C-alpha cells in the first residue's frame, strides 16, 4: 500500500510541476492544485499507514491498544487541505482578474507592455 501511495504522490508531484511550467494560467493553477495534493498524500503516507484501526478509545477501555492509526498526520493533512483549498480558490480569483485586466491567459503576454 505504501508503495502504491508513494508512486501516486510522485505522479502528482511530477504532473503538478509539469503543468506549472506551462504558459497558460489555467494549467498553472491545476498544477498548484496537483502539487498540494501530492504533498498531502506524502504527509499521510510518510506518517505511516495502519488499516482499519481508528485512534478512538473503544467503549469500556481505558486506553488505545496498539496498533492504531496515528492521528497526527491526519490532523496535519486536514489542515493542509483546508489551507491548500483556500489558496487554490484565491489563485482562481486572481487568474480571473488577470484575465479580465490583461485579456489573455498567456503568462508571457501578461508581462509584455502594450
Amino acid at each position, binding site marked *: 500500500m505504501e508503495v502504491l501511495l508513494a508512486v501516486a504522490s510522485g505522479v502528482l508531484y511530477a504532473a503538478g510541476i509539469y503543468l506549472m511550467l506551462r504558459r497558460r494560467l489555467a494549467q498553472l493553477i491545476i498544477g*498548484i492544485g496537483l502539487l498540494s495534493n501530492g504533498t498531502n498524500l506524502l*504527509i499521510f503516507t510518510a506518517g505511516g499507514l495502519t488499516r482499519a484501526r481508528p485512534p478512538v478509545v473503544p467503549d469500556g477501555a481505558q486506553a488505545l491498544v496498539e496498533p492504531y492509526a496515528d492521528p*497526527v498526520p491526519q490532523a*496535519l493533512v486536514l489542515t493542509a487541505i483546508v*489551507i491548500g483549498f483556500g489558496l487554490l480558490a484565491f489563485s482562481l480569483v486572481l487568474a480571473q482578474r488577470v484575465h479580465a485586466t490583461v485579456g489573455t491567459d498567456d503568462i508571457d503576454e501578461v508581462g509584455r507592455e502594450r
Partner: protein
Amino acid sequence: MRTLVLPILVPLSTAVVLMLAPKRPVPQRWISLTGSVLLLASAILVFLRVNAAGVQVLQISGWPALFGITLVADLLAAVLVVAVGVVGTAISVVAFSGVDPRREAFGYHSLIQILLMGVAGAFLTGDFFNLYVWFEVMLVASFVLMALNRTRVQMEAAFKYVTINLIASSIFLTALGLLYGATGTLNMAELARVWPTISTPGVDTVLAVLFLIAFSIKAGLFPLFFWLPASYHTPPAAIGAAFAGLLTKVGVYALIRVFTLLFHSASPALFALLLAMSAATMVIGLVAALNERDFRRVLSFNLVGHIGYTTASLSLLTPAALAGAIFYVLHHIVVITNLYLVSGVLLRLRRTTDMAGLGGMYRDQPVFSALAMIPIFSLAGVPPFSGFLGKLAILEGTFAAGAYWTGGLVLVVGLLTLLSMGRTWADSFWRPAADAHDVAAPGTPFLVAIAALSLVTVAMTIGAEPLFELTSRGAQQLLQRDEYVRAVLGGTH
C-alpha cells in the same frame, strides 16, 4: 508565561475590530495605529521578560508539549517580535497620509494587522507545522495586499509572487511530512533532542536541502530570489516597506532556526552550499543594484544582496558570526523599511522613483533629505551608523572563524553597497534637478514615520554595545540549545 500570546492576539483582535468598525478612513487609521502601538508594547513586555528570565514558554490551553501547540520566545524571537512592532507602528503612521481608496475600502488596515500577526506567530511558534500555518497566514495577507489593484504591472507581479510562494510552501510541507515520518514529532525542542539520535547522513541531507530550498525562496537567496525584484517595487510604498522589512526576514529566521536546532552537525558540504548561495546572493544582488536606475528597484536588489550577509554568517555557525548576523538582521529591518518609506515620499513629490526624474531634493526638501540621509548612509555602511557596526560584527565573526574568503567578500560587497547607495544619494538628492520639481508636499505622517525609524537607527548606533551584547547572548542560546529544550520539555530531559 501568558504574555507570550499577546503579540499574536493583539493584531488578531485589531483586525477583527477593524473589520467591524465603520469603513471610513479616519476611525480605521486610528484603530490600526492603536493596535500597532499595543503590539509594540506587548512585544517589549515579552522581550523584557525573556531578557531577564531566559527562554519563555506558553503551552496553549495547558496541553503539555508534544500534544499541544507550544509558543516559545528565546532572545532571537523576542527581539524580532519587537522589530515587528516597530515596523507595524511605522506602517500605521504612514497610513494617515492617505492609502489608495480602493485598498482602504477593501480592508487594507485589517490585512496589515493580519500580516503582522502572521509574522509575529512565525517568530514565536515552537512547532514546525505551526510555523507552516503562520507562513500561510502571512502569505495570504500579503497576496491580497499585493493584488488589490488592477494595473497590468501589479497583476504580473502578484501572479509571480503567489506562484513562487505556493511552490515554496509545498516544498516546506514536503519536508515536514518526511520529518514527521522520520521522527514522529514536529515540536522544535523535541526534534532538537531526538534528531541527533535518529538522523542518518542521507535523511539529514535530504531534509536539510528541502528546508534550505523552501526557506531560501522566502528569504530571497540566489538562485531563488528573482521573484523579489520582480514584485516588491510594484505595490504602494507602505506595503513594500512591510514586505521588505519583515517577510524576507521570516525566511532568514526560519533558516537560522532549522540550522541551529536540527542540522548543526549536517554534512559540511551543506554549509558550503549555503555559503556559496549567500556569496552569490551578495555579489549578484549588489551588481544588479548598481545596474538599476530606479530608486525602488535599487532598494529591492540591495535587500536581496544584504540577506546574503546574514546567511553567510549563519553558514559558519560560530557564536560571533551568528551574533553579527542577528545584529545585521535587526539593523536591516529598520533601515530597509525606512528606505521604502523614503521611496514613498519621493513618489509623492515627483510621481516617479526613476532617478532621471529625481534630484534637487537636498535643495527643495532639506528636512526630508536630512532624515533620509540616515537610513541611506546606514545601509551604505558609512561609520558610525548601525550598518557599519553590523558589517564590522559580521567581519569579526568571519575572520574569527577563519573564513577569510567570506570576510573578503563581505568587504568587497560592502564597497559595492557604498557605491550603490552613494550614487543613489547623489542622483536622487544631491544632483541639481534638470527640470523636475515637486508636485506635492512630502506629507507629515511620512516624515514622522521616517524620523522615528531614523531615530531607532541612531539609537541602535549609540546603544550598539549593549545591543551587541544582547545578540551575542541570543547567539549563545541558539547554539547551545539546552536552555530552549529544557524550557519547552521541562527539566527531565
